[in-house]
């Protein structure tokens, strides 16, 4: 809809409604940060305010970092996200190039397989994947967290769509320059489709940083838990009602993605909506 000039009354109404919905959106974030700065006594007091009467943030955050291995959880999350993303790009980019630019017997069938893969919700496959990890004897290792995701049908699909838009002449010219097909993938296609690669990377990192379902199945060892599983364990074991440190831990887990989002909004919106927003 074109931005029409709103009458003053309409403009006030617009801001009024949007401020209300924004408040509904922000309350859980504000509450989380607010509790993370309060002392246990103040949290359980009958009256309340957003700002703490007595600043207790240092104690809460210190407890969140020291009494549970939160830095370890976040490090695990970072490592797992990095490994998954690296594997996905290594596996998906050449496959996407083959599907987009090369002719070979069986190509259409394999592309159909990718589309079927796109249909399958990963959670449905968790039981057989659990058995597979058991047979490979990798349960309770980083590998178990990474292996199920090393190929992404969505990644292949998205990159193929972008690679297809790159003119064939560029591919021919690269061949005449003596580049082999693998070099074309990494030196020509991936750099030219960088927006798609970035969008996919954001999608992948957000999905796996936030994932609770598969880590809950694949690892039991506290040393291997990614952040969501870690704070769930923290909630269940240590902090029954010790909200201050629990909220401090939650804030630390949510913060990296939110800061990255605020710094690069456009990329995040594109990545999270799977390129359907253009």
């Amino acid at each position, binding site marked *: *809809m*074109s*931005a*029409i000039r*709103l009458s003053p009354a309409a403009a006030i109404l*617009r801001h009024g409604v949007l401020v209300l*919905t*924004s408040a509904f959106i*922000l*309350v*859980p*974030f504000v509450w*989380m940060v607010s*509790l993370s700065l309060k002392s246990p006594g103040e949290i*359980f007091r009958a009256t309340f305010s957003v700002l703490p009467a007595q600043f207790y943030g240092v104690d809460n955050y210190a407890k969140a970092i020291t009494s549970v291995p939160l830095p370890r959880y976040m490090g695990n999350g970072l490592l797992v996200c990095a490994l998954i993303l690296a594997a996905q790009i290594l596996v*998906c980019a*050449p*496959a996407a190039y*083959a*599907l987009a630019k*090369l*002719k*070979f017997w069986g190509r259409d069938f*394999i592309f159909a397989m990718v589309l079927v*893969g796109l*249909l*399958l*919700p990963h*959670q*449905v*496959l*968790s*039981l*057989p*994947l659990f*058995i597979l990890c058991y047979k490979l004897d990798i349960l309770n290792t980083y590998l178990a967290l990474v292996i199920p995701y*090393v190929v992404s049908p969505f990644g292949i699909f998205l990159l193929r769509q972008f690679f297809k838009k790159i003119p064939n002449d560029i591919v021919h010219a690269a061949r005449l320059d003596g580049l*082999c*097909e*693998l070099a074309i993938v990494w030196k020509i296609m991936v750099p030219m489709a960088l927006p798609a690669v970035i969008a996919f990377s954001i999608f992948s990192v957000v999905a796996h940083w*936030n994932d609770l*379902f598969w880590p809950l*199945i694949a690892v039991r060892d506290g040393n291997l838990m990614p*952040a*969501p*599983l870690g704070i769930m364990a923290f909630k269940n074991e240590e902090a029954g009602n010790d909200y201050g440190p629990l*909220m401090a*831990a*939650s*804030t630390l*887990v*949510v913060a990296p*993605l939110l800061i990255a*989002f605020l710094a690069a*909004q456009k990329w995040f*919106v594109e990545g*999270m*909506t799977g390129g*359907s927003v*253009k």
Partner: protein
Amino acid sequence: MSASLNAVSRLAQPAEGVAGKLSSRVSLPRRHSLHEAMWGWALIAPALIFLVVLFFLPVVGVFVIAFSDWQFGASSLSFVGLANFREVIFDEGFRASLINTVVYVAMVVPGTVLAGLLIALLIESSHSCRALYRAVHFLPFMATATAMAISWEALLHPTIGLVNHSLAALGLPVANWLRDETTALPVLAVIGIWQNLGYAMVLFMAGLKSIPLDLYDAADVDGADHWLDRLRTVTIPMLGPVSMFVVIVVALRAFETFDTIQILTQGGPGHSSEMLLFTIYRESFEYLRAGYGAAVAIVFLAIVVALTLLQARSMDKRVHYQ
């Protein structure tokens, strides 16, 4: 011998010149094509192997487990037909879970889509604070659901939660939101709407941008110059295909709700907030009833596949409109 061959070849040359032009189009790529096909297979091989091992064999595996008596640790299995499905269908827990899932989706989808549409229309109606409002509403979609669920639990806490404090201050009745059979599922639905409305908003904003401006001019000429007329005659009809797409992707996300249940209610009290994905997890990995879990997984798969195919069709329609 060689001279005559030369002569023959020289005789043949003009002809070959013509044919050569043709054949360089036909046979050169053909010689090339084997090379190309080998590269094609080499480049796709890793992805293909992983697709088969991590997607297609597991799908077969789910069906095998669902139609057999296999249990964790068993070295053999025998097929039992629909026995697992019969057990699932006659189990009250599963029926509650299925009904809860449908009810939850029926609450989350309209709530999310209408709120997302309203907010998108409001934001796009003026330039003022547009980027700020968009960023704020999109935050929950990115935020770690596990962590945010913990914050929601504190908000909904019966004695120290902000929700009950506020209600009491207004003289309204309070509740133990997550421990009450009547409120647990609706509260999860509110959280589901909170998580997803920014996603719907962003999709609608993209849809709004793609509406050609001359349609508004045409509406203007036809006398539809009031904003409500413009909304009714241009904006809403043009958003139809996008809306269909938004409804389905939000429904898919709602069906796949797990984190908030796991953190906030564990499906309780009773079965009052149990949904399919949580049932799959609990039966498969906590109760270790593999056959039961796999049968529920297949029901879940059927629903998700049906929705995704609908989505693919609505995407096709969207292309026609553009």
